[in-house]
């Protein structure tokens, strides 16, 4: 004869009491497991949805990339074709300018009066559209100890008798400077910064994008200020004329027209189609970049919206679980306690007689507590099965997540402890019961 046999026989004898207690644990464990399974299945579903969305977005981005690349090629080709039909750019230089020096130094070293450009504009020249006078010089920037090209510009000079066109180049306001890419990148300059050049302070007006040529080490300032700094009042060393309108033997016609107006100058063609192609590539690339950025932003927004929606749904489920699970647990603990009290009351005589037979208080305590642990174990096992099935049935879990062994361990460990705690006081009362009181009354 063992306590275990006594417990199991009593359970079989008072099936209803045991069944109700097990049911109570089953409800609590089932509720907990179902909630956790629901949350887990929600997480899995969220991961699956997000993975699917990410795959869709990646596919869409790839498609955008391909479409953009195709469009970019198309745009570039279009620009190339357009450039073929375009006019070209010319550079008007002082007649005594050695072209070898020009190509070697990247700037003209001879000077001509600034009013040449005025004369050209007033003459109503017809073969060119834009006139851009400049004074440029390669020099050592003493404040930063680096070589730069300083270019003084005054913007575009309007040509008489021509319909005003949108200017290709804006003038640089006095006191300000436009900085080439390599310079502002290496000096970490921002718009609005103050820099010193040849002892004079300038405010950074604009930062140029990367061009991959001498423009990247160029500082553009107002022509008047450049003339003052370089001590070349009223002088320039080049006039850039853009979009020359000629088709056959075009350079000869331009040269002829300009020589008639400015006999002390020479005219050379200046990087016309290369510039146009580069510009075409840049614009196409910018367009592609913009499209990619827009597509990426849209994709990120779609993913973010999905994540937010899923997170909100999980929060709602969690909030519900935070209320429901403790309530059910508390209710079940109270219910197990009540059932244990009833069991003790029902078995008063039995406890009395067992004490009379020599069983100690500890035996009686163990009798009730072991039964509670058994109730916890059985209830937890069935509750785990029930909760897992409910959680899977109601949840969004993909197949294969129905049973979580860690949850089984959790409820198998927690339920007996809680059941034992709930039965602690009744078991203590049973152990402390005076057997004489019952036996005398019987």
């Amino acid at each position, binding site marked *: *004869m*063992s*306590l275990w*046999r*006594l417990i199991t*026989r*009593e359970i*079989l*004898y*008072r099936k209803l009491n045991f069944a109700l207690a097990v049911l109570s644990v089953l409800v609590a464990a089932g509720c907990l497991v179902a909630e956790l399974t629901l949350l887990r299945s929600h997480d899995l579903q969220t991961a699956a949805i997000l993975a699917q969305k990410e795959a869709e977005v990646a596919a869409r981005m790839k498609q955008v990339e391909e479409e953009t690349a195709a469009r970019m090629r198309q745009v570039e080709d279009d620009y190339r074709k357009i450039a073929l039909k375009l006019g070209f750019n010319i550079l008007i230089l002082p007649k005594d300018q050695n072209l070898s020096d020009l190509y070697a130094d990247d700037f003209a070293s001879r000077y001509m009066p600034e009013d040449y450009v005025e004369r050209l504009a007033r003459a109503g020249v017809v073969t060119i559209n834009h006139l851009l006078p400049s004074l440029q010089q390669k020099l050592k920037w003493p404040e930063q100890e680096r070589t730069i090209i300083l270019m003084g510009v005054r913007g575009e000079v309007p040509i008489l008798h021509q319909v005003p066109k949108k200017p290709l180049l804006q003038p640089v306001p006095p006191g300000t400077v436009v900085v080439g890419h390599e310079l502002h990148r290496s000096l970490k300059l921002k718009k609005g910064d103050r820099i010193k050049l040849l002892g004079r302070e300038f405010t950074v007006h604009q930062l140029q994008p990367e061009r991959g040529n001498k423009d990247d080490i160029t500082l553009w300032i107002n022509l008047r200020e450049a003339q003052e700094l370089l001590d070349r009042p009223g002088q320039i060393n080049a006039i850039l004329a853009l979009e020359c309108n000629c088709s056959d033997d075009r350079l000869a016609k331009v040269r002829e027209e300009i020589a008639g107006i400015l006999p002390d100058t020479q005219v050379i063609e200046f990087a016309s189609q290369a510039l146009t192609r580069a510009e075409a590539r840049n614009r196409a690339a910018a367009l592609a970049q913009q499209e990619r950025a827009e597509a990426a932003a849209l994709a990120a927004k779609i993913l973010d919206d999905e994540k937010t929606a899923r997170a909100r749904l999980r929060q709602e489920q969690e909030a519900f679980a935070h209320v429901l699970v403790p309530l059910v647990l508390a209710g079940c603990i109270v219910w197990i306690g009540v059932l244990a009290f009833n069991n003790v009351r029902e078995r008063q*005589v*039995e406890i*009395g*007689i*067992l*004490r*009379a*037979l*020599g*069983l*100690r*208080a*500890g*035996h009686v305590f163990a009798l009730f507590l072991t039964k509670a642990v058994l109730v916890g174990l059985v209830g937890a096992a069935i509750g785990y099965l029930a909760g897992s099935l409910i959680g899977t049935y109601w949840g969004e879990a993909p197949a294969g997540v129905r049973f979580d062994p860690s949850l089984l361990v959790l409820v198998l460990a927690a339920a007996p402890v809680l059941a034992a705690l709930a039965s602690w006081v009744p078991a203590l009362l049973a152990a402390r019961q005076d*057997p*004489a009181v019952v*036996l*005398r009354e*019987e």
Partner: protein
Amino acid sequence: MLSGEKATTPAEEQPLLEVRHLSKSYRGPKGMVRALDGMSLTVGAGEFVAVQGPSGCGKTTLLLAAGGLLRPDQGQVLVAGRDLYALSDEERARFRAATIGFVFQQFHLVPYLSVLDNVRAPALALKTANARQRAEQLIETFGLTHRRHHVPAELSTGERQRTALARALLNRPKLLLADEPTGNLDRESGQAVLGYLAEFARDGGAVLLATHDPRAAEFAHRIIPMEPAAWTASATEGSR
């Protein structure tokens, strides 16, 4: 031999049970009720003593106190020379399991245990060697072999009382306390139970029987009459 002990003749050794000046009162609805008032008695090994008296005279109180289940207000209970109430609760329970057997009028069998398990129940308290074998033997002695797997509800009252008696004897007690064991039995069964008690005493055990069954006189060595409260008796008073 029911006790499993070597047979001795009455009062040839020190008393197995010695009750000295036992008093016990209960709180009742109209104040304190005195159940025992300075009661003294002794029961020697091999002696069968019956206390007789009307209901409420304190017979059950005497038996519970003698069995170490009810601490008296005053007085001492010595069993085999040990003062029961000088022992701790744990020691007293262990001592009770090893030394004292109880038989009650209501049998008090555990309703969900079979006859065999009921008889084996005292082994829960004391790891009795060969408890199952001993239980089977007692069941056979009390003519319950055919009922050994039946639960109490399936037994006659006589069978129940015999089961209770077998249970009381499992741990080979020296002292048997029987509270109206024939109260719910027919004449024949009552006679048999008293016979078993007498046999236990003959085998060297001590029996203290609380009863108002007149047939007890046929079996007990001594009859001690009890009156409600204020009654005292010594071991030497009243004899068969």
